[in-house]
């Protein structure tokens, strides 16, 4: 039975009205936040409040913080798009997967990594690579309790493999002339949840990949397109709006009067085309862990950037490790590379190299069917019978092609 749209249409209409609703005080709140943002030029005052929320007696603050004094930028400062250096090699990596299916035999999962290399300042055809890996052994498929691994484990392994592949190619290109910019389509503050099998090993691999990128002199950027839920700078403004005494007694998880605002609301109003915000870091246990375990060079900073070329702003967040954030020329190169890559795709500003890496990595439903045909052929060569559970088999039959009968 297909979805009965007549039963859902009124709910879709209600959803539309709900989405269109607007906090009547939203404009006032945004104006207030903007005024506070523009007035927050006193770095010492901001650092003082950050020191307070970092005390063990205060918890819950997950907002932005300035970098250490030597590298800190004034909060409301805006940076125009710098010129791209004459020679830049841009590496972008993305991944796709086929998850293991407990209803089919044999069980396996697949990671496919797409890597795209784009050269600027030289007439050279871009390079492209795909690196598929098939995992089918018990060790790869089972957790410590011999259960089939979950999707979050596959996602985590894919994320790490993306950065690992990126780092290996960056290492090979480390002696190329010009700057080496590397992109992933994800935040850099990667962390595994408790339900991920082999979490420690995965984090170690991620760390090794970051170290290799650092040693390759790569300018690493994690591109986060339209981060709708990001409120890190709004949280900082909330912190700055509070009386100092109240900070010690408040739940810093909340956003107070700025509850309806996001960082995108703020930066849509602030950043002109091509401009970036000040560099900031996220004040969180995860980032603290990066700094303490991985080293100071590996704490993750970020900036917001308006990648649009016209009056309609499009805000992205770019994560960068501290080894990049402390190097002004590297930050400028990353900023310029992001904006120039986004300009390639007309009305849909998004880095071209990441679009192509995604295209290379994507595993379609047809690809999956062909791969399974190949696996089944191999099994039959070895006199084995592929199969699926009766449940899945019946589901496929019921969902499958239906012949239309005409009277």
């Amino acid at each position, binding site marked *: 039975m297909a979805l009965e749209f007549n039963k859902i249409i009124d709910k879709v209409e209600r959803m539309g009205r709900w989405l269109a609703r607007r906090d009547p005080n939203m404009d006032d709140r945004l104006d207030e936040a903007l005024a506070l943002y523009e007035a927050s030029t006193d770095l010492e005052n901001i650092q003082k409040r950050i020191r307070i929320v970092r005390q063990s007696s205060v918890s819950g603050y997950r907002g932005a913080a300035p970098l250490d004094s030597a590298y800190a930028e004034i909060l409301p400062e805006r940076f125009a798009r710098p010129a791209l250096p004459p020679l830049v090699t841009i590496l972008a990596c993305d991944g796709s997967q086929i998850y293991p299916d407990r209803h089919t035999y044999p069980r396996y999962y697949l990671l496919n990594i797409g890597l795209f290399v*784009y*050269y*600027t300042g030289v*007439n*050279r*055809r*871009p390079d*492209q690579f795909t690196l598929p890996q098939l995992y089918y052994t018990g060790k790869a498929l089972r957790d410590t309790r011999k259960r089939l691994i979950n999707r979050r484990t596959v996602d985590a392994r894919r994320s790490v493999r993306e950065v690992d592949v990126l780092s290996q190619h960056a290492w090979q290109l480390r002696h190329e002339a010009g700057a080496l910019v590397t992109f992933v389509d994800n935040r850099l503050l990667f962390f595994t949840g408790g339900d991920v099998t082999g979490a420690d090993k995965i984090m170690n691999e991620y760390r090794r990949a970051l170290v290799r990128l650092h040693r390759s002199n790569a300018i690493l950027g994690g591109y986060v397109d339209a981060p709708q839920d990001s409120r890190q700078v709004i949280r900082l403004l909330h912190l700055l709006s509070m009386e100092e005494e109240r900070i010690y007694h408040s739940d810093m998880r909340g956003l107070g009067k700025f509850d309806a605002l996001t960082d995108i609301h703020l930066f849509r109003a602030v950043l002109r085309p091509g401009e970036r915000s000040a560099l900031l870091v996220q004040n969180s246990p995860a980032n603290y862990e990066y700094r303490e375990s991985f080293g100071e060079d590996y704490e993750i900073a970020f900036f917001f950037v308006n990648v649009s*070329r016209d009056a309609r702003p499009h805000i992205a967040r770019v994560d960068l490790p501290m080894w990049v954030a402390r190097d002004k020329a590297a930050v400028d190169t990353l900023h310029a590379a992001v904006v120039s890559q986004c*300009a*390639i*795709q*007309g*009305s*849909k500003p998004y880095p*071209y190299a990441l*679009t*192509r890496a995604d*295209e290379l990595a994507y595993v379609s439903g047809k690809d999956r069917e062909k791969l399974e045909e190949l696996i089944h052929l191999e099994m039959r060569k070895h006199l084995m019978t592929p199969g699926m559970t009766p449940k899945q088999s019946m589901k496929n039959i019921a969902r499958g092609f239906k012949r239309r009968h005409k009277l």
Partner: protein
Amino acid sequence: MVNGYLEDLIVGRVLRSSTTGFDCGTHSTRLDDRHSFGAFVEAPIANRDDVYAIGLIYAVRVDDDPLVSELVRAETVEDNVLRDQRENRLIPVEISVINIGWRNTERTFPGLPPRPPMSLADVTACDRLVVSHFTSKHDFFRLVLNAAEVPSDDLLAAALHYASARAYEPDERETFMIDSGRKLVRLLSHDLKRLAHLLELIRP
């Protein structure tokens, strides 16, 4: 066979087929004179490697690509992006062929082949000897002129120009085209408007 020789001849590989024609696919970077409208191509029929369907290319389609649509909206397209799109990306091209005859190792025959080619069979440009043998008899004209799904007049004219240029010596071409025109006069004597149009199209 010298390395690369077959690659030089291959027009594409069969995607779908019937006895009346077939579609084949290739990569956009390989498009050249072999894929011209009216070109003579052949493909081995199912389960025989010594019998070939002979056909004419009547349509070449470059599939819609949403990424290209976005790129053309940008103010400028960088050279390296152009190279990436043209040389790296798998932009599929489909070529449609109408069957007009078949051949074995000894001779050619007008009309539909006994069986269609199989999927993934190599589609190659016809050898000049095959084209000259096949076109010297003009028997395939009626099949093309009566084909409803193709632009038949333009296709026949393009095929005659292709054959004249590729399969005949310069001193034979005029005779070939005059003989072709005479055959058309016989076939289209009941439709003078169409005949006049076709004769105009094949005028050297």
